[in-house]
């Protein structure tokens, strides 16, 4: 997204971004599919069994990428929302809107896979540790953004209101993380530590990275597709969109 010349402005209008997103999305989808296949191969057929956790540790190959994406997407969403609020650019607010559901899904996946991992490892689906708790709260922040947006009928007003909560949330996420961490360590020691042999660390890291890339590509693809829908909904009455063939 870093373009220093005037084209930056050009693509910041929904009208020009719409076809661009349409061209890019298939490429990102294809990349996501290829990387996912590679990542799954590494996860299941290259990475050896963990001598402590058995096969259960393979969950890491989706858990960690999902957790990363969940946090990163929130940040991206907040930045887009803030830009929309500050400069009243329509496209940035639409981007924020399009990111939120994907971010929420990533958060859900991180929670779900974490819970499924936690049961065999810790004997409980859920413990109140810093990372888990702040991930749960992140989900609430995403939902807050989405529901606030949905509760306001006028989309422009909804954009601006939701932007406020996105920004406030972004400031709070680190505060929440550290407060929960501190709170937790006052009560009990960290209960998670993944033991792994150095030899497998390399394949594992590779698998995680490939899967993370696949998640990246998937997110970009689905967000581009969604932003196209948002553009149609919002610009329904604009002249350019009424032109024949504009929606291709």
């Amino acid at each position: 997204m870093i373009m220093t010349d005037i084209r930056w402005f050009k693509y910041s209008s929904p009208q020009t971004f719409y076809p661009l997103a349409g061209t890019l999305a298939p490429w990102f989808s294809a990349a996501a599919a290829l990387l996912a296949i590679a990542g799954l191969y590494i996860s299941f057929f290259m990475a050896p069994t963990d001598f402590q956790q058995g096969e259960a540790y393979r969950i890491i190959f989706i858990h960690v990428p999902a957790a990363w994406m969940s946090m990163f997407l929130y940040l991206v969403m907040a930045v887009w929302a803030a830009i929309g609020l500050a400069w009243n650019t329509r496209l940035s607010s639409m981007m924020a809107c399009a990111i939120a559901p994907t971010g929420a899904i990533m958060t859900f996946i991180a929670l779900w896979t974490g819970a499924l991992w936690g049961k065999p490892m810790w004997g409980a689906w859920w413990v109140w540790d810093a990372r888990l708790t702040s991930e749960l709260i992140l989900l609430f922040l995403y939902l807050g953004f989405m529901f606030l947006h949905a509760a306001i009928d006028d989309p422009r007003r909804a954009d601006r209101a939701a932007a406020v909560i996105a920004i406030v949330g972004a400031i709070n996420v680190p505060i929440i993380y550290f407060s929960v961490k501190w709170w937790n360590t006052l009560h009990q020691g960290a209960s998670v530590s993944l033991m792994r042999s150095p030899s497998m660390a390399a394949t594992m890291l590779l698998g995680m990275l490939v899967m993370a890339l696949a998640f990246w590509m998937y997110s970009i693809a689905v967000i581009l597709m969604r932003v196209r829908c948002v553009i149609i909904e919002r610009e329904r009455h604009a002249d350019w969109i009424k032109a024949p063939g504009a929606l291709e």
Partner: protein
Amino acid sequence: MSAPGLLDSVVAVVARDLRIALRRRADVMTSLIFFVIVVSLFPLGVGADPVLLRTLGPGVVWVAALLACMLALARLFANDYADGTLEQMVLAPQPLALLVLAKTAAHWLTTGLPLVIVAPLLGVQFDLDADALLILLASLLLGTPTLSLIGGIGAALTLGLRGGGALLALLVLPLYIPVLIFGAGAVEASAAALGAGAHLSLLAALLLGSLVFAPWATALALRIAIE
């Protein structure tokens, strides 16, 4: 008034309220999420010790369900009162208590039932076992309609009083206490292998009692409110 006309009015009230809820889906969801958040706040307040949390579980879930129901109550008549539809309801030739029952039913379907459905998930966060979860579900299923019915009286009484929310809480919470005690008690009794049957039948009795009594009292309160 003929019986079909009567039924049609009741159906119209339920259908309208469900449609409004559908249109404001976020509303329904948020009362649910409030429930989830409050349940999650408690471990943050009291610490993360799993053994402690297991004993707290049923109580916390019940207290949170009760608060969520109570919060949603403010919506039961307040909007109707503010926009004048309540006056039209009072003017309808049908018995007001029946229309009140219809509204309460719609309210429970959109606020109570979702709570009941997610409660087991929250129970898992507190490490409750399958049996306890089942009893929790049953107790909520019997208890939450009572909360909506009783709450209706309070909601009607506080109509039009500014800042009625807190006053509502004050009126309604004492009436909720028996439900809370039997509800949380049922789960604890089953955990202690004492059998939850007695608690559950008491909950059922409360439900029956409030089904008969509450709509009538609510209707009376509504008439006073619009005076």
